[in-house]
């Protein structure tokens, strides 16, 4: 498989339907005996996300928030401020990189790295199209849930290493929050896994495809599927520290939370990780409940909308736009709502989301067993 890699490279574009064709082809691509394809597989989502983070994430957030607040948002840096984020990153690169004298040097430096790795590792198992997945694990969903927990280590390292009281508060709050919200989030995703009967992300997607488009999505699969969907969405907000659960970086309380002391590039990395994980949870929710790369359009008799809008390239488009939609909802929430208090956050997690997650778990199980 190795010698003919180049020729294989172009085929998947045409052959389309065979699962993971691109990524398998890439994985088999060796140059001078080096597994270059694996590197590319790892890099493509990262590059894509980095681009997205730059152009859509920050810029979009600024613009969306501005429009919601009757403002214009970035205007002067490039046409309509389109280069704003690039300027920000370039500037952050130039800034002096301060490591506070009293900080724990090792933890301080390593924290943002762990954070970044934690949030981007999950991209490996996200199926971006029927023909592309970084690592087609049979426990993909489990991996995605599990790997997010690494972020906690990064946040704790950053907050503790800063040797700043606000950072410490932010870190401790964040750890408590993320660890707690893992539970309802995991249970809610488990409902999805139960409906699918597999943890393989790609298979979860395939199970949701069909000629009726959105009607095959797990969200409409059972009468109570909206409940785990909602629970996971709320829990995912907390997991990525978005409002109204942004208490770890609550500006009015903790200055800037666990990254109060970070400057320059380290700060940019934290920022990037934050926007990266935002997309990650949005992608997971759209894969598990909204069909991932499946087209939501149904075949209407002779007008085979669903067939026309499915395929590797369309798939990538669908999953990205679904992800972006959820990011938009996250921003929308952020610029509307006040922030919860620490104990209310825990109340919401343990006394509202977790019981409801269990209920939805049981109901889904019953539904799956006695499905009419």
């Amino acid at each position: 498989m190795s010698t003919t890699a180049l020729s294989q490279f172009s085929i998947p574009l045409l052959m389309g339907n065979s699962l993971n064709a691109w990524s398998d082809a890439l994985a088999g691509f060796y140059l001078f005996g080096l597994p270059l394809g694996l590197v590319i597989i790892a890099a493509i989502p990262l590059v894509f996300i980095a681009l997205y983070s730059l152009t859509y994430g920050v810029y979009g957030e600024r613009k969306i928030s501005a429009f919601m607040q009757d403002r214009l948002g970035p205007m002067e840096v490039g046409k309509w401020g389109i280069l704003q984020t690039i300027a920000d990153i370039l500037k952050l690169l130039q800034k002096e990189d301060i490591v506070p004298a009293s900080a724990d040097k090792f933890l301080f430096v390593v924290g943002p790295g762990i954070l970044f790795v934690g949030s981007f590792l999950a991209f490996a198992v996200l199926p971006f199209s029927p023909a592309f997945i970084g690592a087609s694990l049979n426990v993909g969903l489990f991996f995605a849930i599990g790997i997010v927990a690494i972020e906690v280590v990064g946040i704790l390292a950053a907050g503790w290493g800063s040797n700043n009281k606000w950072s410490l508060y932010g870190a401790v709050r964040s750890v408590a929050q993320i660890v707690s919200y893992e539970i309802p989030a995991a249970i809610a995703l488990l409902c999805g896994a139960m409906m699918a009967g597999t943890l393989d992300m790609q298979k979860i997607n395939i199970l949701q495809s069909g000629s009726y488009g959105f009607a095959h999505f797990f969200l409409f699969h059972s009468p109570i599927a909206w409940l785990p969907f909602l629970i996971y969405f709320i829990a995912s907000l907390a997991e990525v520290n978005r409002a109204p659960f942004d208490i770890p970086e609550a500006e009015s309380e903790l200055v800037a939370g666990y990254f109060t002391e970070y400057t320059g590039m380290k700060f940019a990395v934290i920022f990037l990780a934050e926007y990266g994980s935002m997309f990650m949870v949005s992608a997971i929710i759209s894969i598990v409940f909204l069909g991932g790369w499946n087209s939501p359009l149904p075949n209407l008799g002779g007008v085979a909308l669903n067939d026309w809008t499915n395929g590797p390239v369309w798939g990538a488009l669908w999953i990205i736009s679904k992800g972006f939609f959820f990011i938009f909802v996250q921003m929308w929430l952020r610029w509307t709502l006040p922030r919860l208090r620490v104990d209310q956050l825990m109340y919401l997690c343990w006394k509202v989301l977790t019981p409801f997650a269990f209920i939805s778990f049981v109901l889904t199980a019953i539904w799956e067993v006695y499905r009419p």
Partner: protein
Amino acid sequence: MGLLDAGITKHNMLVTSVDNVLNWARLSSLWPMGFGLACCAIEMMATNASNYDLERFGIFPRSSPRQSDLMIVAGTVTMKMAERVVRLYEQMPEPRYVLSMGSCSNCGGPYWEHGYHVLKGVDRIIPVDVYVPGCPPRPESLIGGLMKIQELIRMEQIGISRADALKKLAEKSVDPRIIIERERTVVGA
């Protein structure tokens, strides 16, 4: 700017154009520290708010000095506060800029004569790049002052000091008001 200062004295094309790009990045994303002291802070907030919207220029306030490039000293600095201002300034990463907003921080303002507890000008403790007069300055004047800082950054180069940049700017002296007037007439016509 540390190491490079000593080595580079003559500027070739490459350095200059790199400079331009880097300067463009810096001037396009000036993050000020949300550092309100007194009356002027309210005008600063008004400038950040919808009607004037500093975010148009990529300026949006950060509450941590570590992530900010610009300190807007908005309001009266008192003796008790002076040391904190210095400390906050020192916490900011290089390259950093200071904009003194309003009469009080320019020179003590209305309190210069009898205000025993008022610091008579924030430039006594930290270097100030631009002074914005007014009591309090209108949001327009604050934006004008920020644009002056941007002009200053545009003039900076690796290897030359900020004072030299100022001199260079003085040679090239362009009155922002003239630009504003010109732009306005263009838009009007």
